[in-house]
């Protein structure tokens, strides 16, 4: 019971921080782009794009 709560919490922390962003990308890829010929990005390549994309708009405020 407590263990499953902790697991949910940990999953939340990973998602909030973007630690699991690549895993989520792979899942998105499998669902939407699996039929195309281009293979998914490598973890390093994906992370580059993801991080640069995060800072396009206003993300922090007063």
């Amino acid at each position: 019971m407590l263990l499953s709560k902790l697991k949910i919490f940990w999953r939340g922390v990973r998602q909030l921080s973007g630690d699991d962003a690549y895993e989520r990308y792979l899942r998105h890829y499998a669902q939407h782009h699996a039929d195309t010929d281009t293979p998914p990005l490598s973890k390093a390549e994906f992370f580059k794009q993801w991080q640069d994309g995060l800072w396009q708009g206003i993300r922090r405020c007063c």
Partner: protein
Amino acid sequence: MKNLQQTLIWLTIAIIGAAAVGGIALQRGESINALWFVTAALCVYAIAFRFYAAWIAATVLEVDPSRATPAERLDNGHDFTPTHKWIVFGHHFAAIAGPGPLVGPTLAAQFGYLPGTLWILFGSVLGGCVQDMVTLFMSTRRDAKSLGQMARDELGALGGTAALIATFTIMIILISVLGLIVVNAMKHSPWATFTVSATIPIAIIVGFYMRYFRPGQVLEASAIGVALLLLSVVGGSWIDQHPVLHGWFDHEGLTLAWWIMAYGFAAAILPVWMLLAPRDYLSTYMKLGTITLLAVAIIVLQPSVKMPAITQFIDGTGPIFGGKLFPFVFITIACGAISGFHSLVASGTTPKLLSNERDIRTIGYGGMLLESFVAIMAMIAATVLDPGVFFAINSSAGVVGKEAADAVAKISSWGFPVSVGQMQDLATAMGETTLFARTGGAPSLAVGMASIFGSAFGQGMLAVWYHFAIMFEAIFILTTLDAGTRVGRFMLQDMLGNIWPKMGETSWTPSAVITSAIVVAGWGYFLYIGVIDPNGGVNILWPLFGIANQMLAAIALCVSTTILVKSDKLRYAWVTGLPLTWLVIITSTAAWQKLTSADVRIGFFAGANDLSAKLASNSLPPEKAQHAPQLIFNLHLDAYITLAFVSLLWLIVFDMLRVCSRYVSGKSVPPLSESPHIPSRLVEDWVRD
């Protein structure tokens, strides 16, 4: 039966809340327990969220859970992604909660604890939360468009341009005042200066770690970064006592200001992964961790609030900033009650993650409630200090005198006893040489937090807690500073791109360097003036920032009100119209006083004329006379900026009234830009597991 039980529970909450608010308001004894504040806040928030927010969501906005959100329709696995409610809440809260709700209440505590507390509670539930929630809703219905775009679509080109100019200028003022707060916290404090500067190489290490050494291992890299940060807090003590290193980190305010400008420029042109992104990770963990720790400490310890409910400074003679309770308490506490800046996050950024419209209430309204609670905690941390100590830390040398003996005599004469010995002991306990005239709110908040943490986790660590609190504030102030400079750079590149397309290419180095330099020069100028101003600078810059922020909020509410009217919901337009009216009243009154007041500490022109007269009659001491011409020029500039702000505000208000009255009388208006209704296909448990 269940209904009756529910009614009884809410009735109990209402009674407890009313008792707590009444208790705070009517208490006239020596001190009051901080738990009253927490109770009052939680009850007010619970009732507002359960009833008012729910009513707005269901009746005014008519949120539709069956309607696909932009995150679902435009899902690209990158920025548009349907995300679990609480994850979006976390992102949204981390984005809106900055140093504003910590600094504003600390400064406003000069009026006593009551005015600020009431404004934080009722301003947020009736104003700030409504603004955030309604803006989030409007943007969600419009493919996550930004506030500026929505203003252009719904009001016309005028509204759109005004929103753009307002956003850019508020950014400049905001960054300069934040820079000033960090400078005041680091001035002649080798410990604080070392700890704050250490955050830069630590961020770079973290940046390289998660980009090249272990790509994408965000949590691992952040854990290392947080450990290094804590080490730097403790290590600062060693630097402070080291005979040689001490001197390396002991600087005048002006030197530190130049360094901050150099830092802001570097952060704006370096790639984000190297400095900005890793710093942001560290600051977010620090922020969430420290705020939680503070909440736990306040609830466990229940410290006593020693500040009176209301002080004599409501008459406008306050030492921290000049100006009467009305309108200046409402200007000083912007974030924490209502903050226009939030509408920039609530439009554009957050809607791209929202998986269902029904989450809008929790994220928009609830996120702001939490920020309001942070402001309440800041108010508690400021008011648990002895009032004499509070005023000694926050009053500038220009107001109470440069010598410690003069300062304590003056502050004690106001009825807030404090002694030189007491201040010296406190400074020694906090590991500082002096705590007099450390304006800007950060040092007094750090002393307040250190004393709360100290009594919870051991007094021996006071100096470490103090510098931890300084580091915590500085790290996310610097995050706002570098992120803001970068956003300012992009906005400027975008604007200049309309004139010369080559400038609009964000990755073209000459364009990046030139626009970053312009943005840094903009806020650097105000920072420079703030540092050389003998009255501390914060007393001028913070109200200017408050006016700008409230003006942005008014723009957001104008857009929302227009959309409500154009959606045939005129009878509910008061939901956004009332906070809008209030904001227009307070910003206009504050601007009017800033322009016309004969009090040299309030009126910009009065201040400039006074200084000119003194300069002409040679009655200024040489060190003041040296900077007087710059200060006079700056006071004039501030006056014209204020005038521009208030004119912009009225322009938008009239534009809104024009569009609304045209609509009501059946004339043509820009059509509603809402995206068509497409049913959601997301399976419940898929996103909400």
